[in-house]
């Protein structure tokens, strides 16, 4: 296959965004968890809980730093690989991006340092407020980038002037319902990523009988968050699906593999299908009658348009072209996402049931099962990303700009070289991240007495505790 600048740039964008997206929801949710934990420590005036906060803080940094450095790439690549896109949308898209920096990046980077290094230098209530500022900062950051993305998928508050999209109402951009739906979905997703990670770490130490009361608190708090998170994910996901029928019918039809507008009195939902983009139909499909209407419209009789009809309409509106996204990845990523969501919900219910019976901390099978759970929400996030980003193709800005027209006029060699370099660095980073996370998580906490023997010279690298020098 011949690779063009367009295909390579798309692959590069997918690579850098998905890689970044492994770390961001985790960071967003983890910050909330740590802020809650430290609040608990503050209210109970518990040094032990303070110690637990620092332990999880240490893990937070390892993850945070990878999220930050990959975020810089995210910010620059719009201009580097998508010059036409940048020129076209800068008036609008640039604003939430700049707001993200102004309102969130500075806040996170400054107060994270103050929180970690300033622990013994400033009063504890002030220290507590710092971690909340960090948590708020990460959420604001997610909010603005999602608002920017939502505008691309559902443009509002603009007009076209001299070939540029020009802002007419920032209020409309900011209150884009798509943005709020996605934000709540991704925020809830972030909570579950972090919660299942904390549950796995806590479970690991409980099984080894390390600091039982502390890790019990960690497990309980995380289970509460996982419950809220997974319920939130399901609810916001459902709302999103219903709004996609209205705002992005082609995407909705793609993740339902709905080629032809249903003819009968209702719309079925396909459970398993083999969609074919070349034949514009499903080679095989197992369908449940009425379910499609019910999921999309809360009734049994309403119908969505199929892709073939939508394609014909779009050709009429936008001229000749293929407006159907690659259905196979969208359809299956959507089903994997939903399936993984179900696994998370069941895991939560299982945990709640054990908790009620008073066996949560001792149920060996459950604690071992928890060890694989941190992967599940990550994979669900990944699948969600694929669903929503491939689902909107071939548009980069829905109805306004096609992806193929948005790319920078770059020599192929440049993109290949940068793509290879990013892949090497990213694979290294993933390896290091997993290595350091498991290593630090397994090492557990230092006993309280070494904390008192704090070393006179503070260590100003995030996540490294002076306490680590024990035995010196």
């Amino acid at each position, binding site marked *: 296959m011949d690779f063009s600048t367009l295909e390579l740039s798309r692959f590069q964008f997918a690579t850098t965004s998905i890689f970044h997206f492994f770390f961001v929801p985790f960071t967003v949710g983890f910050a909330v968890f740590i802020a809650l934990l430290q609040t608990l420590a503050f209210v109970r005036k518990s040094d032990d809980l303070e110690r637990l906060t620092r332990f999880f803080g240490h893990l937070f940094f390892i993850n945070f730093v990878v999220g930050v450095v990959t975020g810089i790439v995210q910010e620059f690549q719009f201009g580097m690989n998508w010059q036409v896109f940048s020129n076209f949308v800068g*008036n609008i898209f*640039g604003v939430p991006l700049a707001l993200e920096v102004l309102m969130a990046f*500075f806040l996170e980077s400054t107060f994270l340092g103050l929180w970690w290094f300033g622990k013994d230098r400033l009063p504890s209530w002030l220290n507590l407020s710092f971690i909340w500022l960090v948590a708020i900062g990460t959420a604001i950051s997610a909010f603005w980038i999602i608002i920017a993305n939502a505008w691309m998928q559902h443009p509002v508050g603009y007009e076209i002037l001299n070939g540029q999209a020009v802002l007419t109402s920032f209020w409309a951009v900011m209150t884009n319902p798509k943005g709020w739906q996605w934000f709540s979905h991704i925020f809830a997703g972030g909570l579950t990523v972090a919660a299942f990670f904390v549950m796995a770490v806590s479970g690991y130490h409980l099984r080894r009988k390390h600091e039982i009361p502390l890790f019990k608190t960690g497990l309980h708090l995380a289970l509460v968050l996982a419950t809220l998170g997974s319920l939130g994910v399901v609810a916001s996901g459902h709302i999103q699906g219903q709004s996609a029928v209205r705002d992005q019918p082609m995407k909705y039809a793609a993740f339902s593999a709905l080629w032809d507008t249903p003819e009968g009195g209702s719309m079925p939902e396909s459970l398993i299908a083999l969609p074919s983009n070349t034949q514009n139909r499903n080679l095989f499909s197992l369908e449940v009658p009425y379910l499609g209407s019910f999921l999309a419209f809360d009734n049994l009789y309403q119908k969505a348009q199929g892709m073939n009809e939508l394609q014909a309409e779009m050709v009429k509106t936008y001229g000749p072209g293929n407006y159907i996204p690659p259905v196979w990845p969208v359809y299956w990523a959507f089903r994997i996402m939903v399936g993984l969501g179900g696994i998370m919900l069941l895991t939560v219910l299982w945990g709640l049931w054990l908790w009620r019976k008073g066996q949560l901390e001792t149920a060996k099978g459950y604690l071992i099962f928890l060890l694989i759970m941190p992967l599940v929400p990550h994979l669900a996030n990944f699948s969600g990303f694929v669903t929503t980003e491939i689902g909107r193709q071939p548009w980069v800005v829905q109805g306004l700009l096609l992806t193929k027209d948005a790319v*920078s006029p770059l020599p192929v060699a440049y993109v290949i070289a940068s793509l290879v*370099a990013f892949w090497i660095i990213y694979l290294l980073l993933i390896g290091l991240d997993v290595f350091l996370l498991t290593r630090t998580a397994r090492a557990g906490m230092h006993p309280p007495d070494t904390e008192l023997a704090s070393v*006179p010279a503070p*260590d*100003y690298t995030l996540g*490294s505790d002076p306490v680590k020098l024990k035995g010196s």
Partner: protein
Amino acid sequence: MDYAALWFWIVTACFAIYFFLEGFDFGVDLLRPFLARNERERKALINTIGPFWDGNEVWVILAAGAIFATFPLWYGALLTGLYPLFTLILLALIGRGVAFEFRAQVDHRHWRVFWDVTSFIGSFIPAFAWGLIMAALVQGLPIGQAGVYQGTLTSYITPFTLFGGLTTTLLFMLHGATFLLLRLDTQSALHARARSAALFWGAFATVAVLGFVYLGYVREELFRSFGLSNWVLPALAALTLAGIWLSLRLKRDGLSFAMSSLTIVFSVVTVFLGLFPKVLPSTLGAAYDLTIRNAASQPYTLYLMTIVGGIFLPLIIGYQAWNYYVFRHRIAVDEPKINQEIISHGTD
């Protein structure tokens, strides 16, 4: 109000603040192999910038974000035109960012050496590349219709741009050294070495600056259009550069740092002043020049950005300054005396 001009100067300010702040943390990284003789000294050098580097770095992300929102054509043309250079910068910043945090996570010599090398390269590449980019802005890029770059990989590699890269690298090393004078325990050998380094690298930096100014005048249009009043800024940059040398001799640490900071700020403003009202001159003809007029966003976007910037910029500067105030104490380099006493008692 002329919002496009205002945003040109805000972008200038972002770069000036970025080079002033990240300049010294790049400098400290670049000086580390020359200054530190053992692990404790390396650690002390890292600790001087530990609570700050992350916040410093955000200024360049703001500069890029601000250009995207207020001059989208500039953003696309610059980043696409200098694609290989920005790829290198991004890779370097990734390596450098994780180096700081990962270095301390595993207690092994090879591990630390690996990350020390990474953060040295990770600081050298952007320090050099940003100077090169500033010079390339002055020199202009071969951009044609719709801001599309028409040159080759090496179009912007000229003696002038290479001198630009050299200048920022050496200036940042000098700036890093004066920062260390403020941050290190004055009794330590490392502090004395930092002063020698400032004098040593300062001499090279001065030569580089003079070379850059000479080439900028002879080969490029920088300074050509400057009237008498516009010469004030480059003159101030020159004066403060001389002031560094004087204050180093007088052993006035605060003054040295203030002088090197001002040198950087005045130099950046001089470059942008030479550019104004262009944002990216084209070497293919004045018709293709990107200016604050034809590259700017529409008034409503600029107005909105002004409001938000007006609220958040002072706030950011406020809490970053407070961050510096909280961690203002000097970093101890040598083992505290009390520990040595304990050790000597133990061996009795």
